[in-house]
């Protein structure tokens, strides 16, 4: 029997849910004209508690709960902490950047927190049913958030594109799950993994793998399943993009890791070249497209596609090195991407008043702090040493080289050289002396409030820590990788198995 009460294994999710409900209820019961901003602090505190609770889960023995539907292991804790961290930063960011007069703030925070529930669960679910529901929770939350600027026309447009393509992808994932269920008779991850080698219909398993990969790759916006990304990033409000370009992606990557390394480890020869191709395609397409963007958010959207490519390179790594590298990369990517979108939010404004690269001209003269931060995060995205981005790429490509994919590493690094071009285009635009005669257009000087300051501080600190002393985080990622590799033997009591042999 499991000595750990089941509830401990989902404690962070429970805390987040309660926070969300609290925010929602308070929001509904406050009279309309009252400001909702303080609800953001409630959400932030709740997220912090959840983060703390996930850290506390490290003390639990690795194992599953709720009839082997959810797992706690260093792997899940790693992603829980990551996601909670991202969400915390996103909330702090929103606190200062959401329009003050908005009556939607309460809903916003509730959605963010509820979305976090889904993302967290997604990383710890070991039952595909739960995976599916968690994925939907996080997706629906982000669909809505993406369309939060309703009055511009772009907001709903982003939302509908995200929504339709996201649901489309979900259908593929679901079909994959159906087929794997058909091949093995179960949807529990460990049971599937055990059943696959002896599965009667191997071709069903292959089809299932392909379909599930399509679904997940859509979610992580890897080429050729990336078409939604630029439009969504452009149309969604920047604070939301900070969230949705990182947290759901992190969760989806966790799912991808789980699927390929835990469900289909025996089919490595199949998915590895597939992901190789997707990785190369993603980075190349992402970078080439980003080169010609004038809109900062679109550019960063393509850059995030490219980063998905670099990240996928880690999947060429053998065994736990690949998992650890991928996990680490996600953390590094999240830190810098949240950071850069925080800066973009402040500079461009919630309504995207200054969306173009040329609008960023002379930023460092207008606001030295923001300019410097922008350049710092861009440097990290480029992969300059002593920033998180460097070690992310480093581990990813080390894993790839270790797994024998030298060409992948070379293509990847050349790509990151190419990527430097557009990142630096923006960075140097920001560093450039501003044009004196601006035609009298009022240039906003962004104010950095306490909450945003904290958010930026977190992002900078995380990026630097990951770049200078990545040891600890890498340790955590490796510990997670090891637990992901070895499925607990007694995940399910054999007596309770509800599946039986197929019809003769």
């Amino acid at each position: 029997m499991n000595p750990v009460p089941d509830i401990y294994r989902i404690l962070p999710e429970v805390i987040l849910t309660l926070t969300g409900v609290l925010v929602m209820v308070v929001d509904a019961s406050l009279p309309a004209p009252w400001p909702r901003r303080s609800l953001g602090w409630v959400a932030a505190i709740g997220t912090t508690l959840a983060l703390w609770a996930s850290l506390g889960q490290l003390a639990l023995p690795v194992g599953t709960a709720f009839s082997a539907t959810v797992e706690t292991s260093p792997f899940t804790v790693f992603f829980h902490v990551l996601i909670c961290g991202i969400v915390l930063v996103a909330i702090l960011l929103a606190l200062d950047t959401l329009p003050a007069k908005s009556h939607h703030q309460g809903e916003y925070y509730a959605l963010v927190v509820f979305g976090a529930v889904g993302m967290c669960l997604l990383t710890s679910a070991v039952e595909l049913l739960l995976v599916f529901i968690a994925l939907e929770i996080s997706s629906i939350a982000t669909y809505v958030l993406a369309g939060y600027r309703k009055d511009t026309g772009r907001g709903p447009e982003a939302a509908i594109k995200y929504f339709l393509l996201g649901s489309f992808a979900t259908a593929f994932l679901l079909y994959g799950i159906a087929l794997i269920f058909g091949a093995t008779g179960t949807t529990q991850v460990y049971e599937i993994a055990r059943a696959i080698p002896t599965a009667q219909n191997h071709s069903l398993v292959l089809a299932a793998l392909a379909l599930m990969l399509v679904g997940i790759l859509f979610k992580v916006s890897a080429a050729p399943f990336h078409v939604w990304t630029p439009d969504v990033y452009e149309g969604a409000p920047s604070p939301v993009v900070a969230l949705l370009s990182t947290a759901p992606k992190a969760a989806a990557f966790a799912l991808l890791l789980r699927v390929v390394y835990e469900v289909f480890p025996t089919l490595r020869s199949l998915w590895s070249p597939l992901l190789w191709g997707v990785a190369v395609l993603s980075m190349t397409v992402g970078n080439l497209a980003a080169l010609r963007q004038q809109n900062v958010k679109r550019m960063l959207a393509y850059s995030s596609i490219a980063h998905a490519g670099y990240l996928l390179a880690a999947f060429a790594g053998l065994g736990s090195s690949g998992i650890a590298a991928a996990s680490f990369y996600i953390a590094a990517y999240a830190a810098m991407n949240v950071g850069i979108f925080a800066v973009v939010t402040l500079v461009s404004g919630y309504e995207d008043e200054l969306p173009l690269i040329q609008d960023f001209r002379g930023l460092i003269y207008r606001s030295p702090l923001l300019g410097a931060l922008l350049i710092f995060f861009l440097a990290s995205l480029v992969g300059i040493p002593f920033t998180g981005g460097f070690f992310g790429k480093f581990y990813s490509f080390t894993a790839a080289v270790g797994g024998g994919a030298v060409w992948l590493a070379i293509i990847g690094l050349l790509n990151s050289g190419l990527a430097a071009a557009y990142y630096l285009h923006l960075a140097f635009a920001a560093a450039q002396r501003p044009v004196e005669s601006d035609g009298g257009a009022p240039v906003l000087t962004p104010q950095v409030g306490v909450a945003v300051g904290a958010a930026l501080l977190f992002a900078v600190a995380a990026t630097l820590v990951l770049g200078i002393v990545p040891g600890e985080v890498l340790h955590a990622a490796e510990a997670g990788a090891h637990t992901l590799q070895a499925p607990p033997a007694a995940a399910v009591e054999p007596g309770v198995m509800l599946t039986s042999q197929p019809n003769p």
Partner: protein
Amino acid sequence: MNPTYAHMLQQEVPLAWYLLLSAALFCLGVLGFLIKRNLITVFMSIELMLNGVNLSFVTFAHQWHAVKGQIFVFFVMVVAAAEAAVGLAIIIAIFRARATLAVDRIDLMKL
């Protein structure tokens, strides 16, 4: 059941047929997603895909005598309902902002 008319009920249908039907529905859904030009019908195509998948689940549940498959379908329905609520809300928001539902007119953001 009365044995006298039981023989008429003997004829069985191979499950593969159900699966083929499900695949066909799924693919028609994909096709619809690609060729339909109205946001609502595109969304309907997705629902069609989900329905195709559901049929697969039920069929496999029958094959394995595993209730899980059916429960999965149940959850898919719930999720589809939730998606429909949100999706249609988004569509209404789009319509308010742009006064059109034509996919090709939803093009504020293009290269």
